[in-house]
């Protein structure tokens, strides 16, 4: 029950048995598609979304008219009516949306998988299209001069104090994380440097051809202390779409399927949208712990079995924190895990964010991480890990989150 000091660890209520989990082995990702990633797409978000969907459908070896399900981000401005109208779809029998910004990324796969596993839809497309660089940038406060009253109690408790932007919210957890565990800027910098190395092997990455050193990282501008510019992801225009179907139907399609072992969501008690400072522990990510525990439970897999991971990395500290919450190391050991970077490089214990991630490939709210997780299964990553059997992807942090675990089909 409610325990203010153990809240994040109290036992879950009666959950269905792992045997009842019908997604495992029965649902697969069969198509991935994306637009170019840029600072200024020069076209609307609905166009970006439709282009990515077409690319994903083509990648799968399907026809556009076969799509009968759509799952979007609640925060995405491109609603399913626009997509249906533009792509001329006529048989969309399942549509829905997932909340909490980037926390929705792997949740869209879960919701698509539920529809597929229960026979509601055959080919469900999950998408995200955003002009996040040329349009509304999340890192900045829009139109403050126009708005006098915060839209809700949550923002009303932050904005009057100027506690206004995502980097500052993650910085608050980071200060505490560094205080409790002695994490250093150099350890966070190693994450940034390694992900940039991956991006420099990926021609589609925003930072392709632009390597950085630890010295560059340390010298980069402080954004909100203790976070520097190179701790932050790269605002991006672009779109990504993913096609989900049954493993059975996947056999007749073009690509090697990335079969779902699990797709899960997690929501922490006493949480808020990225400012959960009121709960007992703020140096970790309880939502991720919940999503992880459920993932390991339904899949029957252990963290040490995972070959490659794409952790949601809007900011560098989120990778060490997730290494802890997903059980790849002990509590407080994540930053040391990343020190020097070798354990998250190719050939290391757990290669992480092999496309360059949000920090260096593109920030498409977690969806480009799912594409990379699928490429690792197919053997087509620009930083391919050898003989990948299990590929982990996680969703947005500091908010209700999600995760998927893929196996080679």
């Amino acid at each position, binding site marked *: *029950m*409610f325990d*203010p000091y153990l809240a994040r660890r109290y036992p879950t209520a009666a959950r269905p048995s792992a045997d009842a989990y019908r997604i495992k082995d029965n649902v697969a990702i069969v198509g991935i598609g994306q637009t170019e990633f840029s600072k200024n797409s020069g076209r609307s978000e609905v166009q970006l979304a439709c282009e990515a969907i077409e690319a994903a459908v083509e990648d799968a070896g399907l026809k556009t008219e076969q799509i009968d399900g759509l799952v979007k981000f609640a925060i995405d401005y491109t609603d399913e009516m626009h997509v249906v109208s533009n792509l001329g779809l006529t048989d969309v029998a399942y549509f829905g949306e997932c909340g909490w910004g980037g926390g929705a990324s792997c949740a869209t796969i879960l919701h698509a998988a539920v529809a597929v596993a229960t026979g509601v839809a055959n080919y469900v497309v999950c998408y995200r299209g955003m002009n996040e660089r040329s349009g509304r940038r999340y*890192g*900045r*406060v829009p139109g*403050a*001069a126009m*708005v*006098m*009253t*915060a*839209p*809700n*109690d*949550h*923002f*009303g*408790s*932050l*904005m*009057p*104090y*100027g*506690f*206004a*932007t995502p*980097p*500052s919210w993650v*910085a*608050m*957890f980071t*200060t*505490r994380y560094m*205080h409790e565990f002695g994490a250093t800027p150099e350890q966070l910098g190693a994450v940034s440097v390694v992900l940039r190395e991956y991006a420099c092997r990926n021609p589609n990455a925003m930072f392709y051809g632009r390597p950085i050193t630890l010295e560059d990282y340390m010298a980069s*501008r*402080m*954004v*909100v*202390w*203790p976070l520097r510019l190179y701790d932050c992801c790269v605002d991006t225009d672009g779109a990504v779409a993913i096609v989900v179907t049954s493993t059975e139907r996947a056999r007749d399609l073009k690509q090697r399927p990335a079969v779902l072992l699990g797709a899960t969501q997690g929501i922490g*008690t*006493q949480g808020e949208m990225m*400012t959960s*400072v*009121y709960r007992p522990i*703020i140096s970790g990510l309880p939502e991720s712990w919940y999503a992880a525990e459920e993932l390991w439970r339904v899949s029957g897999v252990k963290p040490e079995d995972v070959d490659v991971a794409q952790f949601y990395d809007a900011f560098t500290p989120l990778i060490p924190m997730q290494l802890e919450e997903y059980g790849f190391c002990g509590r407080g050991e994540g930053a040391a895990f990343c020190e020097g970077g070798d354990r998250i490089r190719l050939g290391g214990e757990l290669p992480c964010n092999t496309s360059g991630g949000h920090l260096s490939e593109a920030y498409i709210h977690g969806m480009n991480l799912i594409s990379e997780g699928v490429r690792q299964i197919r053997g087509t990553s620009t930083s391919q890990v050898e003989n990948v059997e299990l590929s982990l992807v996680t969703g947005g942090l500091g908010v209700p989150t999600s995760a998927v675990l893929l196996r080679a089909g």
Partner: protein
Amino acid sequence: MGMEYIEGIPLLRPYTDYDNKGFWDAVREHRLVFQRCRECGLIVHRPRPMCPRCLSTEREWAPSEGKGRIYSYVDFVYQNASYPGIKVPYVVVVVEMVEGVRMISNMMDETAEEIYVGMPVEVVFDDIAEDLTLPKFRKIQD
């Protein structure tokens, strides 16, 4: 030196609703209160309709001692990543109050260099505008 507000770009006013009105009404009178459950006595912040421990909706406003310690903090040093109506640098703190709850706030005078996790503080009230008073904090002796 206190925080410097930029004229013409107003701070967002707190949103008041059924649940938090008592908190902000008290702040206007320079009193700090927290929501306390009348059934089990649990103090929570931010205010909410239901006690997460005993699920009671019977609640009252308990006066705070106004003292606590810095639990975490950040330093806004880059204007583009800050609230446009406040001149950088400015500090946002999370204070753990002696009542056990935490609050987001600002330091009244101290800069980032002068504060640390664990520093003892007490509440002060900053009358920023006719319709806006905020509880903030200042350093006290340990």
